[in-house]
């Protein structure tokens, strides 16, 4: 077992555990905290694969922006009390069944399609430095990139409109 593998195992364990805890915590704030940890561990995975830029962006966007949004929302709604009624047994059973089913199906597919994946060859070529990413992003993916910016703008406007308090109708 190499260090890398151990690191991977640890990170994976953390990821899966926090993901589970996110779902199972009764307090939404706890969920959010677990989710942050989960995201950090995923960032760790990115680092493990040598994509530092992505890792950083991930931390900024997810752990920074999105999680803050979550937390703010939770607080806005004053949801920290554990008031959620438990789902009926049949629903939980359904959830577990579908969880198992989709796991099973996806893994089965993966095993079945193993040969299609192909060989892993490392050429040593630089493919994920900021420089390369920037070039690809702003050359080949110029237009989608612009669209993404428009999307964000629209989302921003939409959010503002949605969360503005409507005046009471006369």
């Amino acid at each position, binding site marked *: 077992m*190499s260090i*890398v*593998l151990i690191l991977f195992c640890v990170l994976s364990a953390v*990821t*899966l555990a926090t*993901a589970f805890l*996110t*779902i199972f915590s009764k307090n939404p704030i706890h*969920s959010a905290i677990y*989710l942050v940890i*989960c995201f950090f561990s*995923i960032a760790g995975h*990115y680092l*493990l*694969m*040598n*994509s530092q830029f*992505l890792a950083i*962006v*991930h931390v900024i*966007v*997810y752990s920074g922006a*999105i999680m803050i*949004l*979550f937390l703010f*929302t939770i607080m806005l*709604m004053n*949801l920290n009390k554990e008031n*959620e*009624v438990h*789902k009926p047994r049949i*629903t*939980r059973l*359904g*959830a*577990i069944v*579908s*969880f198992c089913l*989709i796991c099973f199906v*996806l893994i089965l597919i*993966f095993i079945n399609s193993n040969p299609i*994946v192909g060989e*892993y060859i*490392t050429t040593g070529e630089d*493919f*994920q430095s900021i420089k*390369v*990413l920037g070039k*690809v992003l702003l050359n080949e*993916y110029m237009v*989608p990139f612009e669209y*993404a910016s428009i*999307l*964000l703008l629209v*989302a921003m406007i939409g*959010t*503002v409109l*949605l*969360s503005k*308090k409507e005046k009471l109708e006369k």
Partner: protein
Amino acid sequence: MNNILNQIGIENYIFLCVILFCIGVFGVLYRRNAIIVFMSIEIMLNAVNLLFVAFSTYHQDAQGQIFVFFSMAVAAAEVAVGLAILVSIFRNSGTIDVANLKNLKG
């Protein structure tokens, strides 16, 4: 660390992502709190992102990572709008329990 996948193996990443994704699905189905449902969706998105990156590395190609960027942008927008919607739903009905949001009933 250029040949990291030699040591870990792409299969492990795939397993990890599949399980992570399924946890997300499970969360969506299991919880009634809309915010938690949202979080589950984020988990699913991240599972996919992770797989993208893994394969990007596997194929030594930047395009997978570019996709992750876009996916992040979309996720950010989605979360912003989605949470705004949740807030306004909460304002209107005083709850974010998905079991109570039954207006789609035919």
